[in-house]
């Protein structure tokens, strides 16, 4: 038994040497690709990864395996991938906005813009202003008026300080000159339940969270200039003329720095093909989200722009 294990180790080591030799990028992928999701199974980002994995069949010759490495606001998984072998078999899919914000607010060596190579963006998560269905607030203006009438009296729920929902909410409050007390919950599910149970006056949560809960919640506005492509019944802050901070979360696939350029461009092409498949859109539509593809360079530019928008808001969170 011992000897067999030893022989196995030798063979494995030999195989590793062989694969690290030059020229292997040409026949990538040969092994299953591990797609690390730094959140728990069942979240919005995870849904994208599962859909990619399901729709990859026929585009990539190898399976895409979703690996959940939750913890530390998404930094746990990022930390695992940043040090992974840059061979194209370990990549990360994360909520770009939350990832960027956590690298800005937390003490970490990881830089969202520089520590990884951008492969592509496959989707977009947007935060939105929601109230319980029995709430007296029928419009965004009602919320603003109520907050101005009695500053600091309103309570608002979000899924955790430092996340893009929280920062999006802060941006809404700051840009409209109103004050309200935040009550953080752990993740989107509990936040939604708290809002349904009228534990807070309003909340900032993913607009896709409305899907299936239309009778319990009312979405007043989505935190962007234009309407969400899937949840298109919800008006946007932009069209209502309400000032807001452009914080959203592109769902981005990252590769460890140093991954061969051929591998990254092959994966980028594969992701573009997967994102265009109707099955991918169908899988996501059930969760209230949809495919939004952008290549690696565009994804990087979008995140760069968001960093500038979010910097003044997160300054107060830094300590």
């Amino acid at each position, binding site marked *: 038994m011992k000897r067999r294990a030893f022989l196995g180790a030798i063979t494995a080591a030999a195989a590793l040497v062989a694969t690290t030799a030059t020229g292997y990028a040409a026949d990538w992928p040969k092994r299953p690709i591990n797609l690390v999701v730094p959140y728990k199974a069942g979240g919005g980002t995870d849904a994208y990864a599962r859909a990619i994995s399901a729709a990859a069949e026929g585009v990539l010759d190898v399976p895409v395996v979703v690996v959940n490495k939750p913890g530390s606001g998404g930094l746990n998984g990022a930390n695992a991938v940043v040090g992974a072998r840059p061979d194209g078999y370990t990549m990360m899919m994360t909520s770009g906005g939350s990832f960027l914000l956590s690298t800005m607010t937390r003490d970490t060596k990881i830089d969202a813009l520089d520590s990884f190579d951008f492969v592509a963006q496959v989707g977009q998560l947007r935060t939105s202003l929601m109230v319980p269905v029995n709430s007296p607030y029928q419009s965004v203006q009602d919320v603003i008026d109520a907050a101005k009438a009695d500053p600091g009296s309103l309570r608002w729920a979000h899924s955790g300080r430092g996340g893009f929902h929280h920062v999006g909410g802060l941006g809404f409050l700051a840009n409209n000159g109103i004050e309200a007390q935040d*009550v953080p919950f752990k993740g989107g599910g509990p936040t939604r339940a708290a809002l349904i149970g009228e*534990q807070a006056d309003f909340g900032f949560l993913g607009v896709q969270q409305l899907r299936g809960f239309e009778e319990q919640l009312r979405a007043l506005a989505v935190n962007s200039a234009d309407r969400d492509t899937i949840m298109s019944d919800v008006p946007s802050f932009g069209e209502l003329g309400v000032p807001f901070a452009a914080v959203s979360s592109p769902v981005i696939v990252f590769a460890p720095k140093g991954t061969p350029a051929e591998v990254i461009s092959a994966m980028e092409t594969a992701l573009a093909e997967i994102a265009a498949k109707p099955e991918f859109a169908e899988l996501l539509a059930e969760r209230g989200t949809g495919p939004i593809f952008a290549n690696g360079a565009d994804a990087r530019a979008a995140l760069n722009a968001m960093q500038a928008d979010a910097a003044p808001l997160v300054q107060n969170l830094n300590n």
Partner: protein
Amino acid sequence: MEIFPALLSVITDPTLLFAIVLAAAVGMIVGATPGLTASAAIAMLLPITFYMPPLFALAFLYVIGKSGRYGGSVAAILFNTPGTAASAATQIDGYPLARAGKAGKAMKVATISSVIGDFMGDIMLVVGVGFIASIALKLGPPETFAIYFAAFVVIGSVIGKSITKGLISALLGILVAMVGLDPISSEERYTFGSFELSNGIGLVPLMIGVFVLGEVFAQLEERKKAKGEVRENESDPSGHTLTYEEYKPCIPHAIRGGFIGAGIGVLPGLGSAIAAFISYGEGKRRAKNPEQWGKGALEGVAAPEAANNAVSGPSMAPLLTLGIPGSTIGAILLGVFLIHGIQVGPTLFLTDKELVYQLFACGMLGIFAYGIIGYFGATQVARLILKVPVNVLYPLIFLTAFVAAYSARGSMFDVTVMTVAGFVGWLMRKFDFNVAAFVISFVLAKGAEETFRQSLLMSDGGALIFVERPIAAGFLLLGLAAMGFRIRSIMKERRIAEGGLGDA
């Protein structure tokens, strides 16, 4: 009554029936293996279910969860090493029974009680799932905190011989739970600049370390001290049979445990460990023979086992109606729903009602399956495992402990946590601290702190919010009343001990 057509459609599907029986057997073996938990097994089996149809996948994992909860009692009774925190309560009386040569009897009591509790839970789930959903929604942070408070107090009743050491153990658990990110401000606490610690201490490695490694260390030490002594585990034939007369006094405890478990199961995040301990504490308080409890009372096995399994069904209610998993197994099942494109939440009962009731039907058949396998098979498994010499068994337990700690999250840091927790658990046992109080407080502290601080944010720092809301006030009163009873019984014991009014 949508359950009857669902039952019919499940019974007439032989492949599905086979999957249920297989799942019952797998769950029991996994649960009975010390250090391997049902949730770890489900996590490992999850990828296989991607290729199954949704009902198949859900039923398979759901039944493994049920059967695994029950199987934990086998390990607790036989090896004094519970696979789950919940079976730590079963162990209090189960292990003394095994030492007295009544392992088979204890396991039969555990089987029957698990089946009773599980059935009660499932029936309540089927009948009340809609009603439960509407109540669960009304529970905000103040109510949840009050429930945590009540749970903390009731757990005090199982704190053990020394109140001071019990309290220190509980405080230690709370302190360890503080490591990681602050639940409100997301700042780091007690992390000493370590990235891994910023993620907090994981429950699974902590539990495996304290309960499995710690126990093995403690037993190794005992064996070294007592050289040449053989463990008296040979059972006389009557130790394996169970008569109705013997089980009769257990019935009220099993039914009470069923209600306690079902009640706690509905509340997300409390879980079967708390249910088992509360049921044990309540059972002991109401028992005719409390002095027997802890020394090998069959009732002391029945009460926690029924509660432990009664959690299984009702814990599906918040998961299905709100999408909030109440347990690790629930969280994994949530993933299965999502993978198969089924949206859990209030609308689930509109879109996939048939599937949900078929899943419930599979659960009920699963209870039958593990009940029969357990009743007739647990003794054989027990005999087999008892024949394995300890110098094979302990390394095996060691190995599974390391594998389970690693595989839960694929993290080497968790293995370190488990090893450290193992030494801590051993030292705590050595110096008579209460490891159960330590782990339960660890579990409760996080939720209690989070909900307490959320409540204060909601009320601008005013504590009145806990009294103004009726459900919250009710649970707080319950906790205070339990505390009062406890103090009174301690005073009484003292007086008796002092010989004052003892005879009056």
